[in-house]
């Protein structure tokens, strides 16, 4: 089975930690159908997990009445993923994490999610929603990254 052009799959997750794994599984299945190699599928899973966790924790502030939307759009050689929450969006990008500063107590040990997203996919952009709602992060991972 292969995907026709511009196939879209949508998933709605409860704002509850752990449900990011549902999005990971769905994205991995789509990426496999497109023909992504295993290492790129693992990159996608981790980046998407971090985007969903941010949406649950920061966008929806853990409010279980709100859901996180995940829209996966497959093209012939790429997968685009939008992770949508009810937050106001990112105002500023956090600084790149510094392991030495973390080890010396000068920086919080947490705060690596955004760094991992940027590092593992080909494109990542954060878009603030109108009226302070429906903000999203858009990720693109391409099949030919190693080419």
């Amino acid at each position, binding site marked *: 089975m292969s995907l026709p052009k511009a196939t879209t799959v949508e998933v709605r997750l409860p704002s*509850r*930690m752990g449900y990011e794994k549902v999005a990971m599984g769905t994205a991995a299945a789509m990426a496999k159908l497109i023909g992504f190699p295993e290492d790129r599928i*693992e990159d996608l899973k981790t980046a998407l997990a*971090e985007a969903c*966790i941010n949406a649950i924790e920061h966008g929806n502030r853990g409010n279980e009445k709100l859901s996180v939307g995940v829209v996966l759009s497959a093209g012939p050689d790429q997968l685009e993923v939008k992770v949508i929450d009810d937050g106001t969006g990112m105002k500023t990008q956090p600084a790149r*994490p510094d*392991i030495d500063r973390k*080890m010396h107590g000068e920086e919080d*040990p947490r705060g690596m999610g955004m760094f991992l997203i940027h590092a593992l996919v080909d494109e990542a952009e954060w878009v603030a929603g109108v009226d302070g709602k429906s903000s999203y992060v858009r990720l693109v991972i391409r099949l030919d990254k190693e080419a």
Partner: protein
Amino acid sequence: MQSETKSHVDQLTSPAGHPVTVLRFEGDIASTSKDAVLGTYQALPKNDAKLIMLDFTKVDYINSSGIALVIQLLIEAANAGQKVSAFGLSAHFNKVFTMVGITKYANLFPTQPEAMAAL
């Protein structure tokens, strides 16, 4: 939804005859894993455990909150004068640990025998 993190401790002896404490993890390592990761580490007798190994062989999923717990463990180990190494990470999480700089403070090995041989 997240798989509960299980952990247990094994005591081994290095090829040079030094005691090695191995923390073996199983399941997901995420924000809910604090007791399994830090709690297990903090319960170790600090004077006896100078060589620590972290076994990730049975761990499938680690997110940024889980990585932060590993870094907290490394901070406490450094303050206690302990040497930490890790083994059993998948190729992907080996790459992720390297990306975030953990390899500056803990050596990573594919398997337990390779980690033991390096002591």
